């Protein structure tokens, strides 16, 4: 659904996006993460055929972004970073306008608009001027506009940034529902827990370059190492750390707890449990210590910065 090959965009000497490769099949959510000014919005604009790539190519919904810009824009729904609504219009009037632009018939426009507004809890604000909407409501209406023409590809820039938790949940549920319906999503966000929850594939972009890419599990494994487990026992451990050192890599231990890394917990943990039991100790809990995308993200950014400083490669 979205394929980009060595996509680049530069302005004179400044390289905004540098040879970015993307592949987002139907039915998946792709999260593009990165600091401000990393090139996320420029990438989205190239995929929407708003900006022409300096080099490289991309196809969205089967259409070439350079040669078939109108087809591309007709088949993507875009939530832009700034929602930019027409504040003197009412919601239905606004959606009616965009529905006509996308070539929807009168009945279909109205039905889609009402259904989406109901889904996002905006049904009570139909007659309000958009200038009276709260920030979150505006964002939900902008999202409604992006989904109005039922596109196969959705490009969402910070889809829940201004929303309260309940609204953000509604949006995430909508994304999951639509993704199951074989749509492709590309989401750029600073909300890492949201990306971790929604995305099948994550790419981290810094200074226009993708510096890491993969599923959360893959990135997590690559960056943070083997899964970290915590074992708690009843009573004191009496040198348990040494007794299991041949099975796992012990990271830290306390009076009644032990943290260790293990590459294949499903194989090693049963043996560890047997050993602990054989030593006459009682297990209170054994659980993986969850790693967050935030930790992984910060680690990746830190490593890239360190590498860049070492190479003296400033842009």
């Amino acid at each position, binding site marked *: 659904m979205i394929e980009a090959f060595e996509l680049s965009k530069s*302005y*004179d000497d400044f390289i905004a996006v540098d040879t970015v490769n993307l592949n987002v099949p139907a039915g998946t959510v792709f999260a593009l993460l990165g600091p401000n000014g990393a090139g996320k919005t420029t990438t989205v*604009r190239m995929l*929407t*055929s*708003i*900006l*022409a790539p300096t080099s490289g190519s991309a196809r969205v*919904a089967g259409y070439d972004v350079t040669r078939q810009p*109108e*087809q591309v*824009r*007709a*088949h*993507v729904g*875009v939530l*832009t*970073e*700034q*929602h*930019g*609504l*027409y*504040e*003197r*219009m009412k919601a239905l009037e606004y959606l009616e*306008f*965009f529905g*006509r*632009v*996308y*070539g929807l018939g009168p009945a279909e426009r109205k039905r*889609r608009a009402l*259904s*989406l507004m*109901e*889904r996002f809890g905006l049904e009570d604000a139909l007659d309000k001027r958009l200038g009276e909407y709260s920030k979150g409501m505006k964002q939900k209406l*902008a999202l409604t*506009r992006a*989904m109005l*023409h*039922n*596109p*196969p590809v959705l490009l969402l820039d910070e889809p829940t940034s201004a929303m309260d938790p309940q609204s953000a949940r509604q949006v995430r549920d*909508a994304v999951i*529902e*639509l993704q*199951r*319906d*074989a*749509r492709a999503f590309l989401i750029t966000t600073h909300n890492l827990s949201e990306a971790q929850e929604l995305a099948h594939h994550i790419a981290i972009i810094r200074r226009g370059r993708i510096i890491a890419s993969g599923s959360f599990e893959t990135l997590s494994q690559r960056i943070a190492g083997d899964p970290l487990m915590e074992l708690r026992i009843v009573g004191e451990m009496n040198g348990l750390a040494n007794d299991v050192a041949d099975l796992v890599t012990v990271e830290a231990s306390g009076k009644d707890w032990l943290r260790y890394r293990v590459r294949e917990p499903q194989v090693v943990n049963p043996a560890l449990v047997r050993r602990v039991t054989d030593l006459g100790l009682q297990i209170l809990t054994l659980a993986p210590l969850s790693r967050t995308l935030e930790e992984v993200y910060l680690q990746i950014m830190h490593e890239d910065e360190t590498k860049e400083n070492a190479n003296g490669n400033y842009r």
Partner: protein
Amino acid sequence: MATIAEPISRAPVSRPSWRRTLANALLVTEREVRDSFRDWRIIAPLLVLTFLFPFLAQFVAGQFTDYVSEYGAQIIGERTIPFLLMIVGFFPISISLVIALETFVGEKERRSLEPLLSTPLSNTELYIGKMLAAMIPPLLSSYGGMFVYLASLVFGDLAWRPQGALVVQIILLTTVQALVMVTGAVVVSSQTTSTRAANLLASFIIIPVAMLIQGESAIMFLAPDAESPSGIGALWAIIAGMLIVVILLLRVGNTIFNREELLGRMIDQINLKRSFQTIWRQVISVDERGTRARNLVDWYRRGIPVSIKRVRSAIIVASFVFLVAFIAGYALGTSPNWRLNLPSDLPLDRVSGEMGVASQYFWGQRPAIVGIVLQNWRILAAASILAVFSFGVGALLLTPAVYVVLGYLLSQIVQAGYNPFPFALAVLTHGVIEIPVIVLATAVVLKLGAVVTRLPTGMTLGQAWTQALGDTVKLWLAVLLPGLFFAAFVEAYITPLVVRIAFGG
């Protein structure tokens, strides 16, 4: 909870056609006009100017006509009436500038443009839609105001009987002025990111239009053909000239009203150092990629041909215009009305002797070479400035004018029965160098002025203009200045010798 997952829409985009373009443009227009009519800051002045101001103008016209009649100056009163018709029409269309700036840059500033740019609407559809939206309300108000004014004059105490052609002229003037202001506003808007900056730049539109209105007013009062049933000739010329400006501005607007330009330009600050660096990079480049010249020889060998190649079409156009100017001058000289009837028995051997005196008189005490170069440079500098502000047209008016004079002089010499060869030699001895240099200089500034009307593929307005300016500086340094000095040297020291020999002095 309502489900939103429906079968994916894969409606094909219909093929581009004029019908589709217009329909989509009108969609944008409808929304924008509706939006404008909700803004009391736009509606209130339009209503006042449509329904109140015409009555005020009619009252003033009546009072003024009565007053000047008491002193026997009825003609001033008579000519005030159509003048006020023009003013009644002009005031509402001045609002089109405000709406246009609001429609284009205001939307950019409020960030509501990007969602619109993300739709399948084409650049042309958006451009036409917004242009019409900026023009329709003020023009409706303008036509309405003129109708009210005319009706009150025709059916009022004055019982004025307007000349049909003059009324048509005023309506056309009003329309083309609105078009100029709106198309100009698009160009201004594309270069700014805030309405504040756009309003400041709008003085580039307001001042010339205000001056034009003053000129039109003077014409309406003073034109000898003011009573002509076919209208005032000078006003027809202004309408035609304005239409050309509109066409050029439409071209520029359509070129720069594209997604890349609108979203690529995010800052208004001037960075002189960076600008100079970018232009200088162009100057010293030897290829399209901007590779620096290795040395002076490399610069001449590879860099100059690249720049000359880029102004190739402009050279062809300039050469053609020079040729036409020369032929036109010659043809003019053969017309009985313009013929000088020179005496055919002038002793030509005296001419060469007088040349030194004439030269000293003309160039003053400065060395002749500097004088000649300064003279040529002045003309070319004026042509360059004119060209930049007239999309290149100015370049084709000023420098070829000299060749109209040359053609004219040649025709007089031939008609007087002199041998044209010595005269041709007097011009061509240095002209062999000077004429190509002047043609190239004209072509370079023509390109500089006209590049905005048709951008090279894949370039933004800024990039294209920077490249053209870089080429201008490069060719001036490498070819034009040395060429002008060399031609001046020949003209100062060799041409007089040649002339002396040819004229037998």
